[in-house]
């Protein structure tokens, strides 16, 4: 079944959810001027990985990333998939914990953290228990419901910009050594893995995924540049969530709602719940591959409960940042090793095939 549109929307939504929160603060913290450069490098890395990954996958039509390795021994493949699984689980923990904190920070200041963690986890576990079909359908629905709102808020957030703050353009490579910069890759590396998991269920055309990656470029740029253009680097670096701050300072006389932040945040939280369900689904697919006899829904339940307690156990924001930084190593594995090895195996297989036909 060809579902390019759904895959496209899913790809856009899970990145949108990640872009507007930690990403701007990380980029602003990693360099003093010329923010376009670190963003550009990130986008290039993103594209290279995405293209390699999809090219590699295209050698195996109708196969997902797990069955590509089905010929080799399970123990060997486990070495390959264990970091991926660990990355996925850590990503779920970080996302749930960080976004629960953001929700309490921005609007539910009296609500205890564990209820928000519970809400995020239970809704996303439910969606993911229904399988990839349900996830993609939900993505489509959420896109129709929330994307116009998001776009409206994004356009309105240009209200107070002073374009001269973009100058000076010149830049250096100093950001490479900053931990904050590696944390910013959380937004780049979050989504693309799922393309390798949907294959047996759906197929998609590669050009549509590339289109949606291109579609995301302005969002990466604006999420950093709108705070910079409104506040300037010196002030924006003081803010924890710069983009949310800017959205909060939008003043629209003719709109009957006082705070557009609510709409903005709620739509992004909806995207994040979807992203979480996708992560869970991927993690369960991997676990289920190695423990084939267990029922996925029990695994899912167990995983959610475990994640709930881990999230509950993380006491403060500093620890979230530490985990995010530790996760950078796994993330670089996911960004670099996974696409490259898929591509390599694919190439080898193709050569073998052509040799055999000759």
């Amino acid at each position, binding site marked *: 079944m060809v579902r390019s549109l759904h895959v496209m929307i899913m790809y856009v939504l899970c990145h949108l959810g990640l872009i507007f929160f930690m990403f701007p603060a990380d980029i602003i913290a990693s360099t*003093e*001027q010329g923010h376009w450069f670190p963003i550009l490098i990130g986008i290039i890395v993103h594209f290279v990985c995405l293209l390699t990954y999809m090219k590699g996958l295209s050698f195996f039509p109708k196969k997902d990333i797990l069955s590509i390795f089905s010929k080799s021994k399970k123990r060997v493949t486990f070495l390959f998939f264990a970091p991926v699984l660990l990355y996925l689980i850590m990503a779920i923990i970080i996302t749930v914990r960080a976004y629960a904190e953001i929700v309490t*920070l*921005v609007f*539910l*200041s*009296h*609500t*205890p953290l564990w*209820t928000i963690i519970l*809400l995020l986890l239970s809704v996303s576990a439910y969606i993911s228990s229904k399988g990839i079909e349900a996830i993609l359908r939900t993505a489509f629905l959420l896109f129709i419901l929330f994307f116009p709102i998001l776009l409206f808020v994004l356009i309105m957030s240009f209200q107070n910009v*002073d374009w*001269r*703050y973009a*100058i*000076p353009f010149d830049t250096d490579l100093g950001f490479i050594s900053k931990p904050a910069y590696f944390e910013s890759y959380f937004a780049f590396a979050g989504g693309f893995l799922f393309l390798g998991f949907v294959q047996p269920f759906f197929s998609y055309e590669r050009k549509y995924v590339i289109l949606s990656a291109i579609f995301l470029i302005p969002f990466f740029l604006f999420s950093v540049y709108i705070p910079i253009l409104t*506040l*300037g680097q*010196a*002030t924006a670096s*003081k803010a924890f969530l710069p983009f949310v*701050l800017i959205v*909060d*300072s*939008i*003043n629209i*006389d003719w709109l009957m709602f*006082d*705070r557009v932040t609510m709409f903005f945040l709620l739509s992004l939280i909806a995207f994040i719940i979807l992203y979480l369900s996708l992560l869970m689904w991927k993690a369960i697919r991997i676990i289920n591959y190695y423990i084939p006899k267990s029922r996925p829904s029990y695994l899912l339940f167990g995983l959610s409960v475990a994640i709930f307690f881990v999230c509950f156990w993380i006491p403060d924001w500093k620890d979230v940042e530490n985990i995010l930084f530790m996760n950078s190593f796994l993330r670089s594995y996911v960004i670099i090793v996974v696409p490259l090895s898929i591509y390599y195996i694919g190439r080898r297989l193709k050569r073998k095939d052509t040799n055999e036909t000759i």
Partner: protein
Amino acid sequence: MKLSNKKVIYLICSLLTMVLILSGCWDIKDINHRLLPVSIGVKKVDDQYLVILNIPEPIDGSMETKIVSAKAETVSKAVDTISRNMESDVYLLHVKLIFIEKETAEDGINDIIAGFMRSRDVSPKALVAICDEDLQEFFNNIKINAEKKGLSTYNYFEKNAGWNPDIALTRVWEVFRGIHSYTHDVAIPLIRSGKDTTMDQIGSAILKRGKMVEQISSNETLLYNVFKGESGNGKMEVMEHATVMLLGSKTDNIGRLVNNDAHMESLIKVRVVILETKGEPSLNLIKEEINTLISERYNKLFTKLQENEADVFGMGQFFRNQIPRDELKNWRSDYFKNMKININVKIDIQNEGYLKTT
């Protein structure tokens, strides 16, 4: 599809639990148990802050104003004290105006503003004003005016209500930017309670890095707004031979760095209509008069600003491409102080009303 009994029971149970969660209520206080102040006054007394809240209370269809105050080491503690002593809880969610007493502003308001920015209760788009009389007295006068004459405070600053182009409109986030930015300072309206009106605007306070350093008149504030790009629409100017009304204005600025000295060329384009004339002046004479009036006023204002090294116009923004970031840090003292400014005014008389002018 037919559901088994077991499934129906599951469904009902889960739907019922959802009722508990979906209300989203947690330690919630109903709206009738909340107090929502519209304005808050802050004054520093020795080492403590005196906080005064203006809370409108709907009683039997009419609005009554309640003024409450408390003194504590910090602003939030004072609000908390008020909240404790009142029968309802105080929420600063809808604060529209923040008044700060003049002496406090002269000491610096960095901590107060940072506090408002940090706590997400007060919206960053609340307006800031400086009060040129005893804060307690000012709030009492507001109460008397509101109850006896039905005048409200917050409409005074609403762009779609009582705002005039010679009132500076400065929001919390702009003040915060003024504290940290290298090139931006802010002007804040300076007010006192009026006899027949709620407030009398005296002019504006110039804040340099969060400290009030100078005071400018309403006429000069108009120039500030014109420069910022707020329309000066509807403002009258009386001269020797004519009275004109401003329709619109535009400024073009070019900043150049000559031998490490800043030079500024500003071209101010003003569109006016003639309202009244004395005698029979020629159009050229009227243009000449407006020209001298505006450029003289601008020059006077600039000298005042340069003496105080307070760049409320954000002139440094025009030099961002010429001064490296490290030196831009000292923009106010190294460059702005000795900046040469050349102001040209271009007047367009859009129309002359029903009568011809020779």
